[in-house]
């Protein structure tokens, strides 16, 4: 299996999509930081904060820069990661990378020669985890650099909290990438998979969750919110200084979804004819 992981890392670094997606993510992130600069200069910035705690449809990066709460680089990073902007790029790469060997036919060259075809899914998952880590690091670096350019004299903010936050966001991002990978392997369609990924990142599923919440609240009480037990929900709701219970919930949710995605992906690839 280690050989399969090495192979996928080798091919990942040699694909144009790897570099293309990373460069696009950095450019979009830098532009987004520049746009938050324009937002903070508008007089009615405060009103956007009212909706901050509600999961909304679309992608919105909102920051607050007041005299009481001056904007920090950590705030910019938090705003961008919770908006799922980096996740969109991670998901797009997950789709391209997961189905590349099927689309090119390379899977036919190797599919018969591996002891267990499920290893090929695990190796894709490992490569996507590495990609998510790279994207998280580069995304953070891009936000920091753009923040220092757009907001001269900006402070880093809570560095320790930021590290924990990014580690948990990395886990959520990996889980989301694996879910999309499993979906892409299941459907073998890049178009459908990317569409689903974009919908997930834009919170379209909240319409569905709303219905589920009503049913669940009747059974489990008014406090129940299903979005807190989903990867996309946790990416949005995870606070910068999460409580221990929040961390445990996020980690467990990610772990469950990762296990389910891997199980579904391996089952499909093992059983399906190539």
């Amino acid at each position, binding site marked *: 299996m280690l*050989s*399969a992981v*090495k*192979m996928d890392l*080798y*091919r990942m670094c*040699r*694909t*144009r999509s790897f570099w293309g997606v990373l460069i696009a993510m950095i450019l979009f992130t830098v532009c987004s930081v520049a746009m938050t600069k324009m937002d903070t200069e508008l007089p009615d910035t405060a009103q956007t904060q009212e909706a901050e705690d509600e999961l909304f449809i679309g992608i919105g990066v909102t920051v607050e820069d007041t005299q009481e709460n001056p904007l920090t680089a950590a705030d910019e990073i938090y705003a961008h990661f919770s908006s799922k902007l980096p996740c969109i790029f991670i998901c797009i790469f997950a789709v391209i990378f997961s189905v*590349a*060997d099927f689309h*090119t*036919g*390379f*899977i*036919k*060259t*190797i*599919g*018969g*020669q*591996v*002891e*267990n075809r499920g290893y090929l899914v695990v190796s894709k998952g490992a490569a996507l985890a590495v990609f998510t880590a790279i994207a998280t690091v580069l995304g953070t670096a891009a936000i920091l650099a753009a923040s220092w350019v757009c907001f001269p004299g900006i402070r880093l903010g809570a560095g320790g909290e930021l590290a924990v936050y990014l580690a948990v966001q990395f886990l959520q991002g990996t889980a989301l990438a694996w879910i999309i990978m499993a979906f892409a392997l299941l459907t073998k369609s890049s178009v459908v998979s990317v569409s689903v990924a974009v919908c997930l990142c834009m919170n379209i599923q909240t319409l569905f969750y709303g219905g589920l919440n009503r049913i669940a609240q009747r059974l489990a009480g008014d406090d129940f919110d299903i979005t807190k037990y989903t990867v996309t929900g946790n990416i949005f709701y995870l606070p910068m200084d999460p409580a221990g219970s929040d961390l445990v919930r996020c980690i467990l949710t990610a772990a469950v979804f990762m296990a389910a995605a891997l199980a579904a992906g391996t089952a499909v690839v093992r*059983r399906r*004819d*190539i």
Partner: protein
Amino acid sequence: MKDYLLTTNDLTKRYGHQKAVDRVSVHIKKGAVYGLIGRNGAGKTTFLRMVAGLAKPTGGEIVLFGCRGKELENIRTRVGCLIEGPGLYPGMSALENLRTKCILLGIHKKGYEEELLSLVGLSHTGRKKAGRFSLGMRQRLGIALALVGEPDLLILDEPVNGLDPQGIVEVRETIQRLNQERNITILISSHILEELSKIATDYGIIDHGSLIQEISREELMERCSERIEIAMEHPERAIPVLDRMGFKRYQMADKEHIYIFERLEESAALNMELAKAGLPVRSIGVTSEELENYFIQLVGGEQNA
């Protein structure tokens, strides 16, 4: 049984109610170049995919290197395949494509990829991306990929399909070299009989998912070669006459025909001898059969071919 590298027993593949491969039993000797002949959609690719481990049979059995059932998982690395075109990453060079598979199979020998590229005549390609290769180059790179891991059995599905004459010659020479120099057993499918006849030592003719005939090159050449063909009732009665005249290479084709494969210039004398023996001959003549006609006859006439 011990001589066979690959046998299949009643191998079957169904898709719903449709049988893509129907109880096919082939016998492939070690060192053979086994040509699987069949029209498009006859079931060749499905059969090859099952042998290569890419598709699961719905019935029957594969015995490969003496292993069967779950044992097959342990010897899969000894089978290389090029099925339904070469699967290449177009953004990578030939060397990078090969290295990708080498990494998977745990091959770290220095110069291994270059050696394979040289074997298939692609050592000059350098950093050129596979996406910019000609079809012939891509096919040869596909063969090189199939050769990673030194397989004992190479499965090639229509490797000359779509190639120009030069490309066909290059691929054919590569296949012959692999068989002769490396003693690799080759299972190759094609619907271009003329091309297959230049390299195959044995043939399996497949139609509508069923294996119609297995035949060696010698047998096929005999059946398609020039011969005296006699049409008469009770051809078995001609045997004493043939024996008396010293003919040795003859064959009772069916209930009305007898074929003689030697001394073709003596057809007139033979006719006279048969007449003297009181055996009326309906027709006699020297004839030969094209490989393609033979195939068309086997699969049920021209309307099907």
